[in-house]
């Protein structure tokens, strides 16, 4: 089945303009029509009281099971703190060469780190995260090019260092998909 579009599904409150901007960036980067939807999940089922975070593995599977289809690449957008059992936190994750990914705003805001609010910066970080996870769904691996959006980021500073674009190598790999 050929790919019809990319679907961004927001879980929880996101400003309309904010999502529109992310969707435009995604569409521009992948040159595939991108649509925005709203989704509803009872997040309490994914909450780990011991860690006071949300289990990213289970959320990813839930989005994949209930909201994804083979004809689209779907990214679930969250604003809660995500973790996977082995790591203290994650910004997002995706099924490599699959159809689904998730990304969260939670750890991307400046105020989380005691710095002054920067909504433009937050938006820029979030679109990079979404494009990065989408890249994985297209089978792209982490890239070593400093400015490539597929470069692995473990801190927000790492995200700020890279651009929101794929490098030439990743773009070539993407075009071969």
């Amino acid at each position, binding site marked *: 089945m050929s790919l019809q579009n990319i679907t961004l599904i927001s879980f929880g409150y996101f400003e309309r303009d904010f999502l529109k901007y992310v969707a435009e960036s995604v569409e521009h980067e992948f040159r595939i029509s991108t649509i925005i939807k709203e989704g509803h999940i009872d997040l309490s089922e994914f909450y780990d009281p011991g860690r006071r975070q949300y289990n990213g593995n289970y959320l990813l599977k839930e989005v994949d099971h209930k909201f994804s289809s083979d004809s689209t690449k779907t990214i679930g957008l969250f604003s809660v703190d995500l973790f996977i059992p*082995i790591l203290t936190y994650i910004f997002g994750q995706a099924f*490599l060469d699959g159809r689904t990914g998730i990304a969260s705003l939670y750890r991307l805001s400046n105020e989380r780190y005691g710095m002054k609010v920067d909504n433009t910066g937050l938006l820029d970080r979030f679109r990079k995260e979404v494009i990065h996870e989408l890249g994985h769904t297209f089978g792209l691996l982490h890239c070593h090019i400093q400015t490539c959006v597929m470069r692995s980021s473990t801190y927000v500073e790492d995200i700020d260092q890279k651009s929101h674009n794929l490098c030439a190598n990743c773009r070539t790999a993407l075009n071969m998909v």
Partner: protein
Amino acid sequence: MAKKISILIVDDEESVRDSLYSWFKEDGYQVECAENAKKALLILESSSFDIILADIKMPGMDGLEMLRRIKALKNDSIIIVMTAFATVDTAVQALKDGAFDYVTKPFDPDDLSHLIRNATKQISLTEENEVLKKKVVSLEDVEDLVGNSEEMKKVFKDIESVAQSNSSVVITGESGTGKELVAKAIHSNSPRKFFPLVSVHCGALSESLLESELFGHEKGAFTGAMYNRKGRFEMADSGTIFLDEISTISTKMQIDLLRVLETKSFVRVGGNKEITSDFRVICATNRDLKSMVEKGTFREDLFYRLNVVNIHIPPLRDRIEDIPLLVEYFIKKYCTSMNMPPVTIDTAALKRLEEFQYPGNVRELENMIERAIVIGNGKKITMKDLPLQRTIVSTSIESLDDLEKKHILHILNKYNWNISHAANALKVDRVTLYNKIKKYDLKPAD
């Protein structure tokens, strides 16, 4: 030619295995998982991994016991132990038992990246160290290729033009002409020079031994196969494999070899996992492969697969102008190794050396010079220091081959067919002598 790092994750929690699996896959690593120590050890019997990431607390055999067993099997394994219940005692014990590092679950994403980066650095440093050691040895050896004659100039030119390519090469020439040195020179000047040059003397091994040597074997594949062992093709990954005396391999081996050359993949003896290796092949022979093909003793398809480029090294008797240069070179080499000032050679002795026929070629000349330095007066090599009493001056119409055959038979009979003694007297190695016996079809009754 960048090597893909492989990681084995051992943890009884499925969610941990899944998380780590996805994380490493996105980083482009080759990953496998095992849910307990027993399964991990089973996997490690048939495959090897660069990094093993293991949980300490597991039902059945714990991570520390597994660590000890892996270390006993393969001491240079990089094992990182993880635990959710960190105590100083277990950390110290793990490190004492040879763990590369110790981490407490859950860890920061950055810690995980650092951990793997450090382990990868360690792997490449170890590999680089081994390659450099081998490189130093091979560079020294290549110096032995000496000559200024037109024939040798052509050989040097051939080496230069073939080195940069990836083509298979067949080096032909009589025993002792320096075929292995030419192979080393090709490898050392090729883009593969920082990876191993692996030599295999096919003539010295039986068919089954050669098979295990080339392809490796799994533990228990045959009596005495106590451990998994990498084959020479696997060891030559990214480098060059040199197959000496290629004409001696059996028909079955020729078929196996052809398949490996075509697919660059093979299975270890007793194994079932396909292994791929990126190697360049260089062969050597002192026999005429083409005529063997015509006689049906060497496969035509294998011949054409191997003989993309042919470099022929002329016998020493056909390039006598190189003898003074070689003599000078060997004098310098052996005087340096014996820690003595360089000796000279008198004109008569040098003239005599130039007249000799050298059935053993450069190797024979080298042995003569070494012997002369050892038994001489330490100042000048003279006629009496040279073992040339048996010089054969061919005045009859007999061919050189006939003379060689007669001489070898004479020496064999003299030593009651004791191969070691006869080879020693002829100043050739045992493999060469066996090949000569085979070539001339010599038998004790003769």
